[in-house]
């Protein structure tokens, strides 16, 4: 049976993890490779690296990091952040990334999704969508939720599926950072209206939130950062609890 995925997300700047990471057993808490290995051993199903660096060398630094992760980690990983061309994707995949995620570049140039899916296959193209509610309507936002677009979440999600996205990483900016649970109603609607996997993101605070994201939100995977980085939730304990709640997981 296909299992639900638990995905830790690592923010990367200039090849190093940024968000304060509270792992006492790490020699170098800023080393994404070491952290990735730790998560892989802890039972993470997949990893996401989100690059937020803005230097001229970013492409090279990121490619080098991807290569080092691929060398040591035996589970799949996705790389996102600032990807805007076929060349960007080509470099990352050649260095060992399994999937890439595109966000604002797809909003600015939706045809990019068709081009990437055509060249590399839908299976490695994740489209990340950040959205929040304005007057009860889910609106797609850019720049970490700061800039609203004209796009409505459900219309845009259907469009990216039609253009060849292999899965959607949906972050609710209303829930992100609140530790109050995922946007389960919006997630469930995405899951019923689309036929590609949906990754839930934004709002994880406790184990019950993950259970709800799968049971109520019908998500295929759930992504979180700080609850894992600060060891508020242990992935093994989380997955056991999911299984106790009849949610299929890899243990």
């Amino acid at each position, binding site marked *: *049976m*296909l299992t*639900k995925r638990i995905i830790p997300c690592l923010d990367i700047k200039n090849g190093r993890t940024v968000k304060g990471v509270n792992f006492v057993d790490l020699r170098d808490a800023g080393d994404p490779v070491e952290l990735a290995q730790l998560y892989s051993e802890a039972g993470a199903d997949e990893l996401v690296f989100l690059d937020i660096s803005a230097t001229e060398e970013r492409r090279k630094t990121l490619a080098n990091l991807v290569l080092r992760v*691929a*060398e040591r980690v*035996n589970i799949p990983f996705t790389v996102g952040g600032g990807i805007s061309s076929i060349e960007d994707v080509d470099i990352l995949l050649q260095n060992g990334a399994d999937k890439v995620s595109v966000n604002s570049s797809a909003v600015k140039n939706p045809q990019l999704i068709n081009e990437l899916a055509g060249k590399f296959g839908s299976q490695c193209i994740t489209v990340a969508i950040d959205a929040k509610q304005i007057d009860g309507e889910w609106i797609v936002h850019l720049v970490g939720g700061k800039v609203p677009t004209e796009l409505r979440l459900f219309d845009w999600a259907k469009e990216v599926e039609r253009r060849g996205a*292999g899965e959607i990483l949906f972050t609710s900016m209303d829930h992100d950072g609140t530790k109050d649970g995922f946007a389960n109603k919006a997630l469930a609607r995405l899951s019923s209206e689309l*036929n590609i*996997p949906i990754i839930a993101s934004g709002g994880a605070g406790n184990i019950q939130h993950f259970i709800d994201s799968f049971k109520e939100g019908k998500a295929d995977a759930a992504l979180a950062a700080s609850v894992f980085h600060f060891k508020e939730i242990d992935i093994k304990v989380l997955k056991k609890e999911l299984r106790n709640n009849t949610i299929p997981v890899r243990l």
Partner: protein
Amino acid sequence: MRIVIINYGAGNIQSIKFAIQRLGYEAILSDDPLVIKAADKVIFPGVGEASSAMKKLKDSGLDIVVPELKQPVLGICLGMQLMCNHTEEGDTKGLGIFDVAVKKFNAGVKVPQIGWNQIESLSSPLFDGIEEKDYIYLVHSYYAPVTSDTIARTTYGVDYATALHKDNFYGTQFHPEKSSVIGEKILKNFLEIGN
């Protein structure tokens, strides 16, 4: 041991190379028929779209070379699908090594299937030390139905073949290089066939 990963521009080759390294072996990448024919073990990777991958294979003449190989060959993911008779993806004729036609997943399940599923009905030395229902990582939209060449099955809407074997040819729909310790064990079993 000479391990060659066929490099025809359609695959996450780096990850396979690294997985083999972690097992203590070295693999080289090549599209040279002579180098491939001289290998002890051949890995035939593949990700992406079937008809364009098949075109790349034909452009380098490897569509003739691969079916004639005599040493153990492991096709992974799209590599496995291209070793079949035909695939619905792009209505593509395959290499005809496995006598089966690859189909698209039906309605009722999300496509692509992405994530960890289980392998069952294991019947090959490829799975020595692997338990029934162990987890493997898959990402695909097309599948090979169960036939007499099937050596592992998985359920996703349908019961289908996640591994195939015929003569010296093996194929896995899943990615052993991405399937944690289970995948590494399967890859190790393949590398040690006949040793």
